[in-house]
């Protein structure tokens, strides 16, 4: 192919991407063109894809996702809502906290915020309205709640960031904290995640009191005990998971296998929420999501290698070094950039495509890569609900049968609060790194 042809082909790429061509195909096409321009055989693109078999870390992705889908299919959501309600429902505005905590746990395990809105939305929406929350507020809350969980372990996004960042970190730059490993990221996300929930809870507290006379649930130790007993097989899981990893008993990959096995025992054998004949359907459904993510990862592997070889990050760095001189300035620019990325792409593909480009630059500005991961996820999480194309807005519009414009308005206050929280997370690295040290 001649040079002109290559340039024309490159022009096609953004068109195909914006038109809605599957992203893996767009990425693979870009890699094919780039390789061909260098005179490298297209087989090299496939060789790079073979690297999918190179990391034990990736084993965790299908296993955690399978576990998450088992919980999603079972009555876990109901038990979870009942339990958090018995625990926090008595606080004025407490049901909003319940909704956020339940959504967070759910998203952390299922990895997909869309599933959360669909699965928990129908359960929580009527309850919120009944307890005196305005309709717009409730809509905004549940739309936001869908993505809150991606900062908490064992979220798929944290694992994926860790994998991609580790691959693209340059060996010469020693990360002061010891590198973006999964176990560090699992810890790093906890406080920022709690901060988001806390700030939204304060807002909820004021909204319910100003709204209609709220029906406040009274605290009942008996109901708490009953709810806890109903969820007795699910409550230990987070503790087993974190205890296993941080007690040094299990690697993250083994923890994923243990979680999936535990979910299988609890939901199929003990609760029997999932009949045996439904099991293949649930397993298959979860693997469609996994396949969608892994094939993008595969397609991006050749491309990122090419981009690093072509020193694209270095060139970006040279371009911005003139006018971004400080770390704070870099982080501010990064926030703005990632918000745009977040509303165009979903979290997974954004991580796969953007992280390799940003990591070498962030290293130059002295950003801790674990902290960078939390900034990435917090940004992308907000991008999910940023108009005009944030994905959660569309899912919620579909789920609650509300016009999309109404959701723009309903989520606006939440968006502003999350942006404030994002600034805190970005400029207070200790918030992310406190637990890691």
């Amino acid at each position, binding site marked *: 192919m001649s040079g002109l042809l290559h340039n024309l082909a490159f022009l096609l790429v953004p068109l*195909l991407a914006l*038109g*809605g*061509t*599957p*992203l*893996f*195909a767009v990425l*693979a*096409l870009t890699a*094919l063109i780039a390789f061909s321009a260098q005179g490298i*055989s297209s*087989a090299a*693109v*496939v060789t790079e894809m073979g690297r999918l*078999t190179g990391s*034990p870390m990736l*084993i965790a992705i*299908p*296993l955690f996702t*399978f576990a998450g889908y088992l919980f*999603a*299919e079972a009555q876990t*959501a109901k038990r979870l809502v009942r339990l958090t309600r018995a625990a926090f429902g008595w606080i004025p505005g407490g049901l909003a906290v319940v909704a956020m905590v339940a959504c967070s746990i759910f998203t952390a395990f299922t990895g*997909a915020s*869309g*599933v959360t809105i*669909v*699965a*928990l939305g129908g359960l929580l929406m*009527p309850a919120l309205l009944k307890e005196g929350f305005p309709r717009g507020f409730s809509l905004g809350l549940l739309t936001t709640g869908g993505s809150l969980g991606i900062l908490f372990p064992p979220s798929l996004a944290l694992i994926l960031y860790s994998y991609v960042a580790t691959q693209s970190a340059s060996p010469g730059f020693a990360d002061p904290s010891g590198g973006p490993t999964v176990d560090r990221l699992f810890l790093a996300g906890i406080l920022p995640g709690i901060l988001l929930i806390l700030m939204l809870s304060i807002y909820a507290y004021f909204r319910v009191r100003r709204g209609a006379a709220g029906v406040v649930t009274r605290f009942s130790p008996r109901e708490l005990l009953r709810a806890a007993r109903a969820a007795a097989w699910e409550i230990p899981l987070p503790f087993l998971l974190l205890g296993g990893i941080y007690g040094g008993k*299990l690697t993250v990959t*083994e923890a994923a*296998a*243990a979680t*999936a096995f535990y979910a299988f025992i609890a939901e199929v054998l003990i609760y029997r929420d999932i009949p045996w004949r439904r099991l*293949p*359907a649930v*397993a*298959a*459904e979860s*693997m*469609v*999501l996994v*396949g*969608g993510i*892994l*094939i993008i990862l*595969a397609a991006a592997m050749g491309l990122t290698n090419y981009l690093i070889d072509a020193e694209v990050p270095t060139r970006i760095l040279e371009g911005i070094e003139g006018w971004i001189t400080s770390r704070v300035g870099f982080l501010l620019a990064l926030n703005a950039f990632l918000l745009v990325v977040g509303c*165009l*792409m*979903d979290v*997974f*593909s954004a991580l796969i495509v953007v992280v390799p480009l940003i990591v070498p630059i962030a290293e130059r500005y002295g950003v801790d890569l674990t902290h960078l991961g939390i900034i990435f996820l917090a940004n992308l999480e907000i991008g999910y609900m940023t108009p005009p*194309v944030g*994905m959660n807005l*569309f*899912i919620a519009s*579909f789920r609650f*049968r509300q016009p999309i414009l109404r959701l723009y308005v309903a989520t606006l206050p939440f968006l502003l609060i999350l942006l404030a929280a994002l600034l805190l997370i970005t400029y207070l690295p200790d918030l992310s790194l406190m637990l890691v040290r």
Partner: protein
Amino acid sequence: MEGGLFAALAPAHRFYPLFVALALSLLGLRIGLRRAWGAAAWRRRVQALERLVLASLILSMLALAVLQILLRNLFHSGLIWIDPLLRHFVLWIGFSGAVVAAGRLRHIQMDVVGRWLPEGPRRAILRATTLAAALICLVLTRAAWIFLGQEHAFGSAGLLGLPQWILMSAIFLGFALCAVRFAARAFAPGEELAGLLLESSPADGLDGLSPAEDLHGPAPARSAGEGPPAGGGAP
């Protein structure tokens, strides 16, 4: 370029006519079977096959991983081939999942334009992008074929006595099937395409999973016609 079995079967420069002929006969078979069994029965059987493959992969992966944990913690031993085998499972699961996602048009995508367009232009764009995906997969299938030829000629012995090229053939099979499935959907009759559009809407992320109670009665999962197409990561 490289000799051996793969080049003998289909040399790289003659790959496209051979593969396209194969793909067309597969598409012909699809049309024939759909007619013989009826579209609904064909769909049911394909989905049953998809479930069988994906569920056996993830369940065996889980069983092996758990076995390894037990061996390691209870008997302080382990089977040396389990870990590399699990890593290859990632490849097979990834590509099988991708083939199923291709059949349901549920691949992750940026969908910026489509949401705002009326049904007609939206379908036209969907056909165009799906066709583009089919063509790209076709090129990748050829690349994977050349890659397999190299692995076959020079590759090392893989796991459990299986040669490396067999372990890596998931990439070739995956792209080949994706190419065929995308092509079938790019030229699908209008009603089939409409059904796919509806099916790939976000609420279908829970494809058949029990719908939670709705604010207004039963869940809209399949009934609502105006749902936006899959926004991508929405599973």
